């Protein structure tokens, strides 16, 4: 029971990182139907920014987190304007290849400029372990979980309650109709990229704090896992992405805990395929009927 609870705590910490990343994928996919392959690399940039400001200016953790979110948001919007906007009316597979190009560019550009070696992320928050009911919870795990939940609630409020959020949902449903009622789709798409990238930047700083190591290729695998999480939750659905992230995180730690860590990636993909075969649009996705 204790081991089980311990693994749940570990799974929730990892899951909140996946969930934060998955939210960006799901929002961007919901609005322009693009698998933004560069999303994992924005998470990497967020982690590197956190590393840079903490080491150079010795700022505290929250300043690093907020500034990484702002930098990531700006970068995400810049990428959208330069690389994706010219392809708004091209075949979707073209935009996908461009996204892969952007991802290669960020990974290799960072390796070229700052070296491909792994660095130690500074300990901006001293680690304390709490022992509750026989399980060990570190303050960093609590911090990750709380930050992730606060950001998710904030996102849900933005999307559901603000004017910008309403416009986002309108563009996701029908960009042309939204344009007719005076919403500028380009403006909204930029905003969506900004929001998603900010969450990815936050996830990058949090993972740096949790695992203590960052490198230019760190975004690849979590990026793909987070996309799987978004698909499992039902792509386009914000609560779905959050649930999908936690499901994948718990699954991975669970498989690792029973001694099959070599197969943890396979387990994630088997669950993905099974869920897609049973529920083709994911756990919370809307099933769109095709009309003849």
């Amino acid at each position: 029971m204790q081991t089980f609870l311990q693994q749940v705590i570990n799974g929730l910490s990892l899951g909140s990182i996946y969930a934060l990343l998955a939210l960006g994928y799901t929002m961007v996919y919901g609005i322009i139907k693009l698998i933004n392959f560069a999303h994992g690399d924005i998470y990497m940039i967020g982690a590197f920014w956190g590393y840079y400001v903490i080491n150079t200016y010795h700022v505290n953790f929250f300043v690093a987190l907020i500034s990484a979110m702002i930098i990531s948001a700006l970068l995400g919007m810049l990428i959208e304007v330069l690389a994706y906007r010219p392809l708004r009316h091209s075949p979707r597979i073209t935009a996908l290849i461009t996204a892969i190009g952007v991802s290669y560019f960020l990974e290799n550009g960072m390796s070229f400029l700052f070296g491909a070696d792994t660095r130690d992320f500074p300990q901006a928050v001293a680690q304390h372990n709490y022992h509750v009911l026989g399980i060990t919870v570190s303050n960093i795990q609590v911090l990750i979980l709380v930050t992730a939940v606060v950001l998710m609630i904030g996102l849900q409020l933005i999307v559901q309650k603000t004017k910008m959020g309403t416009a986002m949902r309108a563009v996701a449903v029908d960009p042309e109709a939204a344009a007719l009622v005076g919403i500028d789709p380009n403006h909204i798409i930029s905003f969506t990229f900004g929001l998603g990238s900010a969450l990815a930047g936050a996830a990058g700083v949090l993972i740096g704090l949790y695992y203590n190591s960052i490198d230019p290729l760190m975004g690849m695998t979590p990026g793909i896992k987070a996309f799987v999480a978004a698909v499992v939750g039902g792509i386009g659905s914000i609560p779905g992405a959050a649930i999908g992230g936690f499901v994948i995180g718990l699954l991975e730690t669970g498989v690792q805990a029973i001694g099959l860590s070599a197969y943890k990636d396979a387990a994630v993909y088997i669950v993905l395929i099974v869920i897609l075969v049973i529920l083709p649009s994911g756990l919370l996705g809307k099933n769109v009927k095709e009309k003849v």
Partner: protein
Amino acid sequence: MATKWKAALCWLALAAAGFGLINVLIGVGVIDTFIENMLVTIGINIILATGLNLIIGFSGQFSLGHAGFMALGAYATAIITSAMPTVGGFYLSVAVGIAIAMVVAVIIGIPTLRLRGDYLAIATMGAAEIIRVILNNLKITNGAAGMFNIPALAGWPTVYVMVCLTTLMIVNFARSRAGRAIQAIREDEIAAEASGIDPTKWKLAAFVMGAATAAIGGSLDAVYIQTIAPGNFGIMNSIAILIIVVLGGVGSMTGTFMAAAVLGVLDTVLQSFGALRMVIYALALIAIMVFKPSGLLGRYEVSIRAWLDRKGVNNAASNSNRAE
């Protein structure tokens, strides 16, 4: 003689001429081992990418798991040729690789081909990753270290002949009844189904065909490079093949040839840039996509038959002019 046979003879002559040309150029020393290496890589990429183009461009199914099937062929060859290091053993291993890839493609395809678009892409990607994880953990495949000292049983002539054969097979498949059926499904699945085409059956046929050619590519890769590891067959390798297809133009086999050649040459030229290589490659990729969104050739195909037909029409027209 029917134009059909004339066109076929022309292609045969072209293929033979190409073979002769490479032979002569190697003889006089224009093609050194460096360039020969590049040509073989281009050839293997053509085999892989034409198969993927059949799946993506002709049947309209977005598969991101091509490297998984390639891995099956590569491992079949590595395991069989280490026991039977003869040319016969190599061809046996190619056949076994194809058979395994086809069976696995059926197993993966039946549940996943019901999915559409990006969902299919992500499911096939997952399936390929599962193959990779299994190869990574089996004893017979030597785990994550991979297999080395695979006997060098195929040089550029084998690769050249295989490129011609697989292309012939795929182009003929695309022009046959099956090819017309899968193109009808690509354009409108419901309309195709209403006219009596079974979408699942034909989509699966294209998927299995693509998987079989991927296995051939994998086998050739194993005996040419002589070292394979599960890490060579990950998502990024599937994406590398996808890039060739999209860059050339989805649905254009000529485009696939051209893109494989362009990328192969670009890669060789960029070797001298060291760490900047991938940065330039990435920028080139973004630039081509932004300025030429439909790929280098769109859906254009070079067809000797169409050219002969046009010439025939012109001749007939000029003949009838003379008769008047």
